[in-house]
């Protein structure tokens, strides 16, 4: 109490007000991004495409020569390896196509029609799938084959074909229930499988079957050795660099995917710069409570010396001054936290767009990081106070 009285007159109310606003704003600017980052980062993990790595399906440009059958349109192992070593390319998966004959048929009941069609399959390594559907596996003993079809196929049916033919629309879940028969043949052998739609893909525009199924059937029923893959899927972290490489090598991809990838790259870069500037501003604003300590010390020459002459040692005097600073910072921090959480509550209903089931309170890790940063600043403040107090307690 006595000590507070000694140091309280040193800083004018308007100075306390200014430093308080600075500290509060700084701490709020520190808190809100931390809170938001951990709220959203969990959502980011499930929606990896957003600001994450990009997946592009590449093929070689179809030229007159390749159309005439001169030269292969496929990617050789050397070409794939060369591409793999390019900057910004994380991983490459080859599409494996079927070399066997496949026929699919669906039987629509006793009086219904039997629809039959030639089929093709492709396979990619599992890590390139948007998500691995339930039951996405196959073994040579199994007669059931899960497949993934492009979401676009179903959309084409639902929004293009069905309305004109007075047919009902089909949901993804309903489509997964439908079964059909697949007949694989070649090399004088034949086997019948049960087909099942296991999932839909936005990323890969082909009919996918498990890789070991294609490999097994190619070996067992295939007419010839599989050709070089005509399409590859690339996981890239830098889409702009990849676009340059593609241009020079004459590879092409879905232009929309490329464009949106580029936009994401630019957005990512802008976001990084913005975050860096933001972090700088926050660090500077947090400096205002260091200033508070500095201001207090700078005005405390008489008080520090006098306490020292009474027999108070500089460690004790530092502790007294630090207590004043700490109380001030603690109040600013509490207010900033309250304001931050209030803002979050206010935005909770909008958050559901990004985050599934947002929690009423920010994540624990946000508090841990916030208090760690504060502890770091307080440690600097304390060190500074001890240093200055020691200087002012000394003889001159």
């Amino acid at each position, binding site marked *: 109490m006595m000590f507070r009285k000694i140091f309280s007159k040193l800083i004018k109310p308007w100075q306390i007000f200014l430093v308080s606003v600075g500290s509060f704003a700084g701490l709020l600017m520190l808190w809100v991004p931390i809170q938001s980052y951990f709220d959203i980062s969990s959502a980011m993990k499930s929606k990896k495409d957003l600001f994450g790595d990009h997946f592009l399906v590449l093929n070689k440009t179809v030229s007159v020569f390749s159309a005439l059958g001169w030269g292969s349109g496929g990617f050789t192992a050397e070409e794939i390896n060369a591409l793999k070593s390019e900057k910004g390319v994380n991983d490459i998966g080859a599409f494996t196509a079927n070399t066997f004959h496949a026929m699919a048929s669906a039987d629509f009941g006793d009086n219904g029609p039997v629809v039959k069609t030639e089929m093709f399959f492709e396979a990619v390594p599992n890590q390139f799938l948007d998500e691995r559907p339930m039951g996405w596996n196959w073994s040579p003993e199994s007669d059931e084959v899960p497949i993934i079809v492009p979401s676009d196929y179903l959309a084409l049916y639902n929004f293009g074909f069905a309305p004109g033919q007075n047919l009902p629309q089909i949901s993804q879940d309903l489509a997964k229930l439908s079964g059909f028969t697949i007949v694989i043949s070649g090399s004088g052998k034949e086997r019948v499988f049960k087909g099942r739609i296991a999932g839909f893909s936005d990323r890969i525009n082909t009919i996918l079957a498990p890789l070991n199924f294609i490999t097994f059937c190619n070996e067992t029923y295939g007419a010839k050795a599989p050709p070089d893959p005509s399409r590859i899927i690339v996981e890239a972290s830098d889409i702009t660099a990849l676009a340059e490489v593609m241009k020079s090598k004459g590879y092409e991809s879905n232009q929309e995917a490329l464009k949106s990838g580029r936009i994401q790259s630019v957005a990512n870069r802008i976001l990084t710069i913005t975050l860096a500037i933001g972090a700088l501003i926050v660090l500077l604003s947090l400096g205002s409570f260091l200033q508070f300590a500095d201001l207090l010390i700078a005005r405390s020459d008489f008080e520090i010396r006098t306490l020292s002459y*009474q027999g108070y040692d500089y460690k004790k005097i530092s502790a007294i001054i630090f207590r004043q600073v700490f109380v001030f910072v603690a109040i600013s921090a509490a207010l900033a936290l309250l304001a931050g959480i209030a803002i979050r509550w206010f935005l909770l209903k909008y958050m559901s767009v990004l985050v599934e089931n947002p929690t009423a309170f920010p994540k624990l890790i946000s508090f841990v990081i916030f208090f760690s940063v504060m502890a770091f600043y307080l440690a600097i403040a304390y060190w500074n106070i001890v240093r200055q107090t020691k200087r002012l307690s000394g003889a001159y």
Partner: protein
Amino acid sequence: MAGYNIRFENVLPAFLESLQIPESDIWKKNFELTENLHYLVRAHSGKGKSTLLGMLFGARNKYSGQVFIGEKELQQIDLMEWSAIRKDKISMLFQELRLFDLLTVRENLKLKIDLTGKYDIEQAIQWLDALGMADFIDRPCKTLSFGQQQRVAIVRSLLQPFHWLLMDEPFSHLDEYNIQIALELIKNRCKENGAGLLITSLGSTHNYSFDKQLNL
């Protein structure tokens, strides 16, 4: 108790080095101050009275030569050690008093009492009362006249154990009546502590029988 004698060896404050100094009993001399004796240091303004006491209190260190307290050279004493010395070995009354303006008389004295634990506030009030200041105990120091503040500062300097009591022109704003009461109080405290007394003055001895007078 001779362990706390003060010994001067050829000491001269830095600010006097470039000046012509008239004959002095202290500067540039080798001599010893005995712990339980009472000394008066007389000088005109600007001769280094405050500097002398500041040196002995660890507040000033710009001087040549050496000063020893007991066997310890003053410049060798570190900050933490000085704090301990100021707590129970040497007490000082500054010319500018160094009271906290916003604190009441009671709070100013409590700062010392809480730290040293030797006396309680009741004792302090008795001494204030002797100096006619008991009624001001709960008044902020800034509302008191300099003479009143001087009496508070005298009482504060007595509220701890000490081997030496250093007083820098302690009676400059007191009337003769109060000076005599204060001197009586100071003498008794020094006797009780077996302590030495070093008072600076512009000239007056205040009719007090000092053991020795030194001209600066």
